[in-house]
C-alpha cells in the first residue's frame, strides 16, 4: 500500500467540460449534475439548473465541481452548510453508487446531441463520464471518508 494520501476525488472535471459548465452557469444560474443510468443516454451525466431535480435522501454527493479551477482539488463540503452557487454538486443514486464507488468519474465533454433534459445539448456538445478504477490506497482513503447522502445536505 502507498503512503498517506491527500484528498481523493470521487469526481473531477476536464478543463473543456469546465468551460461549458462556466458558460451554462452564466446563462442558467447555479447548476447541479446527476449521473444517470439505464438505456439510451444512460451512463451520462445530466446537468440541470440547481433545484430542478429533487435530490433524494439516498442519493450520494460525489463531490463539488469548481469550474474556475478544474485541475485543483475539489472544494470540501461541510455537512449542514449550503453548497455555494459557483460550485456544481455531482450526485448519483444510492444503488448506482454502490456499484460505481470503486471508480473515479471524470466529467468530460464531446461534440454531440444527447437527449434527456440536460442543459448543454442545444450547444452541440454532450457531457460524458469517463471512469478509472481507484487503487488500494485511494480506496482506503475513501473508505475512511464516506460520501454524504442527500439526507445530509441542507
Amino acid at each position, binding site marked *: 500500500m502507498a503512503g498517506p494520501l491527500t484528498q481523493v476525488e470521487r469526481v473531477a472535471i476536464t478543463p473543456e467540460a469546465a468551460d461549458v459548465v462556466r458558460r451554462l452557469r452564466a446563462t442558467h444560474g447555479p447548476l447541479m449534475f446527476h449521473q444517470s443510468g439505464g438505456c*439510451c443516454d444512460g451512463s*451520462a451525466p*445530466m446537468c440541470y439548473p440547481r433545484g430542478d431535480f429533487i435530490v433524494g435522501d439516498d442519493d450520494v454527493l460525489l463531490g463539488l465541481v469548481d469550474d474556475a479551477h478544474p485541475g485543483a482539488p475539489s472544494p470540501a463540503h461541510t455537512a449542514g452548510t449550503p453548497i455555494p452557487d459557483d460550485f456544481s454538486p455531482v450526485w448519483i443514486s444510492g444503488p448506482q453508487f454502490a*456499484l460505481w464507488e470503486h471508480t473515479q468519474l471524470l466529467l468530460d465533454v464531446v461534440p454531440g446531441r444527447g*437527449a*434527456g433534459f440536460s442543459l448543454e445539448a*442545444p450547444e452541440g456538445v454532450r457531457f460524458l463520464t469517463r471512469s*478509472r478504477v481507484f487503487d488500494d490506497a485511494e480506496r482506503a482513503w475513501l473508505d475512511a471518508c464516506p460520501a454524504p447522502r442527500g439526507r445530509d445536505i441542507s
Partner: protein
Amino acid sequence: MAVYPAPGSSESSVAVKPRYDNWIAGEWTPPANGQYFDNPTPVTGAVYTQVARGTADDVEKALDAAWAAFPAWGKTSVGERAGILLKIADRIEANLEDLAVIESWDNGKPIRESLAADLPLAIDHLRYFAGAARAQEGGISQVDEDTVAYHFHEPLGVVGQIIPWNFPILMAIWKLAPALAAGNCVVLKPAEQTPVSILHLVELVADLLPAGVLNVVNGFGVEAGKPLASSSRIRKIAFTGETTTGRLILQYASQNLIPTTLELGGKSPNIFFADVMAEHDAFQDKALEGFTMFALNQGEVCTCPSRALIERPIYDDFLELGAIRTKAVRQGDPLDTDTMIGAQASNDQLEKILSYIEFGKGEGARLVTGGERAMLGGDLNGGFYVQPTIFEGHNKMRLFQEEIFGPVLSVTSFDGYDDAMSIANDTLYGLGAGVWSRNGTTAYRAGREIQAGRVWTNCYHAYPAHAAFGGYKASGIGRENHKMMLDHYQQTKNLLVSYSDQAQGFF
C-alpha cells in the same frame, strides 16, 4: 446484394427537405422562434437537413391543436378509429421501402433490419391495436338484484409522448397505436438525434387523421421535451430513456398528478445452460445466434442481452463458438442489404461506448474480440461505427452493471442453476432476459425466478404486438404492447346504478 442510394440524392426515391418544421394541427408549422438545428446522418456524420428547434411556445401551440381536436376525436366510434389505424398501416406498408431507407439514414441501423423488422413491426402494431380496441369490452358487475356497476373505457384526453432514438418509427408507433386507438390526441416529441423518419411518416398519413389528433414538436429535451413533460395540459406522459430523466419526469408528473409510463432500460442477462451444447444441431445454432443478438441494432436496444452467463462445463467451447459467430457479423454501409451491423446513432453515443471499452480494459476485463472503433473507408469514415466487442469478466464490474447501449457484450460463467439466478438478478434493472435450455422445467423455473418483465425463452429479440413489454426494478413503470396497454391510455368510468325504488336506509 443491393445498396440503396442516399436519401436526397438524384438516384433515391426518398426526397429530403432542406428543413423540417413542426407538425401541428395537420400542417407544417415553423418554430415560434424561427430556429433550426443541424441534423446529421450517422452513416457518414454529414449534416443532411435541418429540423425545427421547438420550444415551449411550440408545445403550447401543439397542445392547443390537440385539445381542439379531442372533443370530436374522443367521441369517434372505436370502429372508425380502428379503420383509420388500419389505413395508416396500409399506407406505411405501401411505402415501406422508402420509410425503411430514411429510418436507416437518420438512425444508422442496417437497412436489412428496417426492412424486415422496424417497419413490419410498426405496421403490425397498428393492426393489432385496431383489433384490440374493437375487441375490448367494459365490465358489468351485478352488485345485487337491483344494483349494477357498469364500467366504461374513456380516453384520457391529450397525452405527451417522448420517443427514443434507437427505433424512431417503431417506438413512436408503440406509443401512438394504443393512444390513438383509445381515442386520445397526442403531442409527440421525437428524439433530437433521429427526428426525420417520424416526420416523413406523419406527412405520409396526414390525410388519414383529423387535424390536431397527432402533433409533432421537434427540438432538444431541455427546450421542448421538458415543457411537454411538465405541462399541466397533458393527462399522461410516456417516456423511454434513462433513469435520471425518468425521475425528473415523475417529479413533473407528481406536480400535475398525472399517470406516467416509463421505460428506462436494463442490463439484460442471457443465460446458457450446459445442455445447449448437448447436441450439435439446429437448437445449438439458434442458441449461438441468441448469444450474438447483443449486436442487433448496434446494441442500441433497451433489452440488449449485454450480459451472457454461460454454465461452466460448456463455458470455453460455447464462448469460442460465440466469438466466431460474432466475428461473422458483417459491418458496413447501413444502406447495403448485406450489412448486419451499422452505425451508432450519434457521435456522443460513439464516444460513450469507446470510453466504456477503454474503461473495461482498465477494470480488468479480458477483451475477447473487437474493442475498437470501426473505420470502414470513404465517406463512412465520418460515421459512427464500433466493432462488435466481447469482454470476459465478473458481474461486479461496471461493464456488467451499466447499459453501455452499444455492441459490447460482457461474459461470465456460472456454477449451476442457483448461481445463474443469483448473477442474473444481481442488477439494478429488470427489463429483459434470455434463458436457453433443452430442459423445459429448467427454462420455466428460471423464467419465473428472474426479476425481469420479459424473459425470452429459447429465443431473443422478438417483439410481437401481443406480448407485454416493460420493466421490473429501475427499468421503469408500466407496460407497452399487448392489449393491456390500452388501459394505460384510458380512464375507467363506473356508473353505479340502482334499479330499486327503496330508500337506502341511512336517513
